[in-house]
């Protein structure tokens, strides 16, 4: 194998919010190695108490996101060879979230903001009603579909400078979720949701620099969703609906 005997230098963040520092490790290089493989190798062979999160390892669950060479990434689907900086790789926890320990962040606030943005479906029918037929070609359905594949990984949230500067900002993921529901014709919470996403730290605070869209591993476009929310909320406000 071409990589036999080769190693990579890994700088890994250890510690918690009050005290964290990069520690250096040497990890055997493997073919098609992912960043998560590297972290797992260190945990299994060198640091049994290393804290980090993962579950599916195939880009479905959204739990493995970390900062890799300064950029937020889903580590299970990020190949080391694609993100190496010379012969070094630096792995840190996500930005904009408190660190619990090492690479594990506290995502409570991230998910609380989904709740604040009313990111839940409000049904308008009961089990006695017939199933509503919705064409996948309808404009509103296409808008909703464009944002629906979010895996809640927090990569966008970690890349957003407004989140960094404004603690109340709901952030790209929660707002993207709200936008999919605003476009769901079966949902009954439109005005309440538009109110929720235009309070302090609402969609109007987004600067549209598209950090979120650049890094979203599922190639979603939260910036576009937020622009949609801004427009819908502005029109509803001018019409006196909210």
């Amino acid at each position: 194998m071409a990589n036999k005997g080769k190693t990579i230098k890994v700088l890994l963040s250890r510690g918690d919010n009050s005290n964290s520092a990069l520690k250096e490790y040497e990890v055997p290089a493997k073919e098609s190695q992912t960043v998560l493989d590297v972290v797992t190798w260190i945990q299994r062979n060198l640091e049994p108490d290393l804290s980090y999160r993962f579950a599916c390892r195939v880009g479905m669950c959204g739990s493995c996101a970390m900062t890799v060479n300064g950029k937020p990434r889903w580590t299970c689907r990020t190949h080391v060879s694609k993100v190496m900086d010379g012969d070094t790789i630096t792995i840190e926890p996500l930005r904009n979230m408190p660190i619990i320990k090492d690479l594990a962040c506290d995502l409570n606030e991230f998910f609380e903001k989904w709740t604040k943005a009313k990111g839940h479906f409000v049904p308008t029918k009961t089990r006695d009603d017939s199933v509503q037929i919705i064409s996948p070609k309808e404009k509103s359905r296409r808008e909703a579909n464009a944002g629906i594949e979010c895996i809640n990984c927090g990569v966008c949230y970690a890349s957003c400078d407004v989140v960094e500067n404004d603690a109340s900002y709901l952030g790209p993921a929660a707002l993207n979720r709200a936008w999919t529901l605003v476009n769901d014709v079966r949902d009954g919470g439109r005005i309440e949701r538009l109110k929720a996403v235009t309070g302090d730290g609402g969609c109007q605070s987004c600067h549209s620099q598209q950090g979120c869209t650049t890094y979203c591993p599922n190639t979603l476009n939260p910036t576009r969703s937020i622009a949609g929310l801004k427009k819908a909320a502005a029109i509803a406000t001018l019409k006196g609906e909210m």
Partner: protein
Amino acid sequence: MLSIKLYIAQRLTAMLMAPLVLLHLGVMIYAIQGGLSSGEILGRTQGSFFWGLIYGLFVVALSIHAAIGLRVVIYEWLGVTGARLNWITTAIVILLLGLGSKAVYAVVMS
């Protein structure tokens, strides 16, 4: 702290300013053909209701637009919130309105 109403105000004033800026630039390019003199400019603007209205509107729109933009910067970078942020925003509007109307007065009325 940017409310949706302030957001709307900023977008509406931007929509108002866009054509005014183009008009302003157009007239500037037109005006400097064959040299630029204050006499020529004042000849066009003095006593002109049209130019008074155009630049008056521009000053009002700009004062609102810029103050909201600065409000966001002051909130995000300096962490100023609440009543203090409102006072600072209002002060910026008044300052820009004052400076702007002085300039409009100078070219139209004097």
